[in-house]
């Protein structure tokens, strides 16, 4: 932004922090407003994914046995590994925010952000492998779908929801990795300090939100009726 803003403004005797926008009184107020604004955005995201969870709940209520049978086709090991990977990425994200908060050197922040992106990449790689299996096994809804006759129609509803929900989740992860690249660039340019770290803080809120969506997707998609059926 403008580095010359460091200069003393005409009506004030103390210099402005270069990151302080003119419509805020001070950095603290700016941080609070930014954080609240991010939360308001996340609330719209909760209801966005909430609609999908609602559709899932209605169809699972209507076709419990078909959902259990279809859920059995998902790889529980890969699902569990991915859950752990994503939780790990949330840890490195939280540590990256903390590094910025404590005024750590840019290199430390960037390394933690890189670890977050790397774990996000591992998650997406495992997800891609799972998708490939689904295509190979003809479990993608449509003309080539194959499933036991009894649940042929209803299982397609499950797999449609599986692809839409995990696909939108993966899209959020890809956007998240983009945001982390942006934050790394800013960190390298030395834009963050113990006084000003709110961009990396709200980027962290976004990343943790995407983690939470997966925390619910995992049991609802992978863990239905593992004890019974078959």
């Amino acid at each position, binding site marked *: 932004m403008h580095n010359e803003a460091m200069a003393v403004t005409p009506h004030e005797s103390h210099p402005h922090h270069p990151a302080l926008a003119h419509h805020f009184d001070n*950095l*603290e107020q700016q*941080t*609070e407003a930014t*954080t*609240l604004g991010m*939360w*308001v955005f*996340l*609330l719209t995201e*909760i*209801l966005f994914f*909430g*609609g999908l*969870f*609602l559709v899932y*709940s*209605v169809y699972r*209520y*209507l076709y419990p046995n078909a959902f259990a049978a279809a859920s059995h086709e998902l790889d*529980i090991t890969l699902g*569990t590994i991915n*859950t*752990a990977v994503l*939780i*790990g990425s*949330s*840890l490195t*994200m*939280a*540590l990256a925010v*903390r590094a910025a*908060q*404590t005024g750590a050197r840019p290199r430390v922040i960037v390394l933690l952000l890189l670890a977050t992106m790397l774990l996000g990449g591992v998650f997406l790689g495992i997800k891609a492998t799972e998708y490939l299996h689904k295509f190979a096994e003809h479990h993608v809804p449509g003309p080539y779908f194959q499933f036991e006759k009894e649940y042929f129609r209803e299982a397609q509803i499950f797999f449609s929801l599986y692809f839409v929900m995990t696909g939108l989740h993966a899209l959020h992860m890809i956007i998240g990795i983009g945001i982390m690249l942006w934050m790394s660039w800013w960190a390298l340019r030395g834009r963050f300090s*113990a*006084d000003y*770290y709110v961009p990396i*803080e709200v980027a*962290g*809120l976004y990343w*943790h*939100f995407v*983690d*939470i969506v997966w*925390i*619910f997707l*995992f*049991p*609802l998609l992978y*863990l*239905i*009726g*593992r*004890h*019974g059926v078959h």
Partner: protein
Amino acid sequence: MSGHIVPTRVYYTIFGILLVMTYLTTQIAYLDLGAFNTVAALAIAGFKATLVVLFFMHVKYSTRLTKLAVLGGLYWLLILLTITLTDYMTRHWRSYG
């Protein structure tokens, strides 16, 4: 500053609990608990999400306004889910299919 600095020990502890809970939820899925399987899965997921929100997302240390906004979002989600599901569960849509 509003930025409360959380000790790294807290982050590692939360990380550990989240991993243990993930293991627990997969193990519980293999037990036959009837309808309680879904309840247990959702309770564990809810507990994990709460830990992430409170500690990783700093809501425990944030302003009351932020806390209110988060609770408001949760409340609206519950309205969406419960009112629609009470409808589906009491009107016997199944008999039309």
